[in-house]
């Protein structure tokens, strides 16, 4: 068992840490306050080549592993959860393209995504289809050299700002999940527009947008994988995406823990810094322990993915544990900071609002427990 990072990973993380500390973390409050898409941050990530980490060299990427991507994503999320999720949602487009795309599709779409010239998104969620992914109502109908898409998607992360979307539609509604089919849809395609921008409890700068398909003719060559195999595309994408969502949650937990620790050393009550009280010490100890446990679940999931071994169970465990840890750590961080923690002057109340999303997206905690139980009972 080797827990050391290699030289390339260390070098990359040093640079990412530097950029996160100097450029991204200092504007995180402002980004969240303004609620506007942080295009500057995305540009910065692109200029560092971070969008190309997992994309093979022949498609314009760096051809590195998912573990390196995970480590980088952790740093970004710790500096700014919004930027971390934009980065993570992009993977939900590049991952299925790499895994299920034809050679032509990869050559067409991946180089732009690798350079960050185009941003990606994944669209499954609908008003009636969330945890029940099979219940997608958006339809696709074959018409000569096209598929005609009709329906609405909601809450889509990177919606409108993204250029390339992997969209799940149903080609045969009577068959439910067995009718699901994945398509690559580009922004600007006729009949593809954007509707509502959803207002959220936190992460206000993260775009979560309604996608509207109104007789949108998608070229047949943009069919991703096969007809009626969209459920598999979605499930495999989500499995990898859970590592990304988990690591986003972990980043927030780390940021909250550091704030709590720092504050507990500075805050004097009863003539002593509050970190000298056992009640506070135990909170910090629990926070750190859970963060470390979540981290290694997620690193291991990414490592298994890189090895081409089954990683789904670990990814679900990591996502479940990291998101619940983030909720707990951020809530306790507010507690450690007391009245100040509840105020907007400190970022911990923001972390707490941000953390909640992670227990919901990419499969709720309840769905994760279902997946884990299902997988372990099959063993």
């Amino acid at each position: 068992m080797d827990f050391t990072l290699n030289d390339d990973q260390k070098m990359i993380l040093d640079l990412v840490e530097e950029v996160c500390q100097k450029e991204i973390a200092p504007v995180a409050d402002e980004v969240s306050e303004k609620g506007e898409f942080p295009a500057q941050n995305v540009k910065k990530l692109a200029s560092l080549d971070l969008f190309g980490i997992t994309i093979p060299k022949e498609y314009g990427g760096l051809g590195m592993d998912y573990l390196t991507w995970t480590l980088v994503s952790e740093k970004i999320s710790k500096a700014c959860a919004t930027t971390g999720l934009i980065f993570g949602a992009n993977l939900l487009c590049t991952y299925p393209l790499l895994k299920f795309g034809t050679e032509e599709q990869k050559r067409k779409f991946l180089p732009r995504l690798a350079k960050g010239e185009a941003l990606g998104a994944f669209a499954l969620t609908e008003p009636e289809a969330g945890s029940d992914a099979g219940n997608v109502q958006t339809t696709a109908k074959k018409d000569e050299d096209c598929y005609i898409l009709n329906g609405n998607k909601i809450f889509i992360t990177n919606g409108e700002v993204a250029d390339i979307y992997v969209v799940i539609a149903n080609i045969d509604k009577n068959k439910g999940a067995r009718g699901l089919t994945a398509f690559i849809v580009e922004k600007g395609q006729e009949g593809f527009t954007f509707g509502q921008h959803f207002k959220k409890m936190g992460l206000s700068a993260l775009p979560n947008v309604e996608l509207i398909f109104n007789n949108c003719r998608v070229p047949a060559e943009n069919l991703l994988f096969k007809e009626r195999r969209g459920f598999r595309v979605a499930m495999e994408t989500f499995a990898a995406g859970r590592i990304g969502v988990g690591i986003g949650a972990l980043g927030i937990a780390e940021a909250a823990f550091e704030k709590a620790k720092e504050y507990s050393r500075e805050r004097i009550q009863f003539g002593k810094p509050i970190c000298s009280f056992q009640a506070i010490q135990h909170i910090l100890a629990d926070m750190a322990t859970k963060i470390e446990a979540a981290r290694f679940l997620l690193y291991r999931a990414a490592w298994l993915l890189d090895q081409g071994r089954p990683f789904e169970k670990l990814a679900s465990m990591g996502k479940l544990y990291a998101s619940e840890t983030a909720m707990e750590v951020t809530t306790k961080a507010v507690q450690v900071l007391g009245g100040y923690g509840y105020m907007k002057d400190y970022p911990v109340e923001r972390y707490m609002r941000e953390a909640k999303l992670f227990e919901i997206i990419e499969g709720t905690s309840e769905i994760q427990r279902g997946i884990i139980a299902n997988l372990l009972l099959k063993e």
Partner: protein
Amino acid sequence: MHIIVCIKQVPDTEELSKVRINSRTNTLVREGIKSIINPFDENAIEEALRIKERHGGKVTVLSMGPPQAEEALRRALAMGADKAILLSDRSFAGSDTLATSYTLAMGIRKIGEFDLVLLGKQAIDGDTAQVGPGLAEWLNLPQITYVRRIELSSSKIKAERSLEDSFEIVETNLPALLTVTKEINTPRYPSLRGLLKAKKEKITVWTSKDLALDKERIGLDGSPTQVVKIFTPESPKRGKILTGEIPEIADKLISEMKKRKII
């Protein structure tokens, strides 16, 4: 267009509070302090890269320092410089600005043809701002210091020099030497691709044997500057606040000033 950028590795500004002076040797204690490229030199690298991107050509980075200065050169390569040369030799140790500028000049002579030499206006550790001008003298080049903006044509360069309360526009023929301020640009970060590429690249190291040096002009022996003592200046004493009614304060103030022979 061949641009040579001279850079210096310095202790990280954010860790400056940790920097200590060895009271016996009067030198910086560098152990445990992160090193970076002198920030003004990063502006010089950035400007060189922008010139290259606009006009074509190549960028060579040159540094004098201990072997670990390779790290700074590698960062410059990762930013996009084409070639890196390190002048490193035990006999260069203890160089002041005169010996440093001489040694760098000999390095540049060995490099050969060039159009422009760029440096930061000064290093954040020594703050002398002497190496750039010294280097121009050794190389017999026209020099423009404290440059905040440039305009380049095929054989001429026009530069805006930042002065305390105004600026000056100076034009000269190439080749020339410029030192730049931080206003000139915002240095880029290396890309991952750049980092991975720079890691594999070879850094040329030249020792005293590789350069046609006058031994009396290098290192401690070639340095007329003698550091007698380095110390942190004492912060000025705090003022005294007088209290009471205004006429009373005025009286106290006058007697205090008389006592101190101010009036």
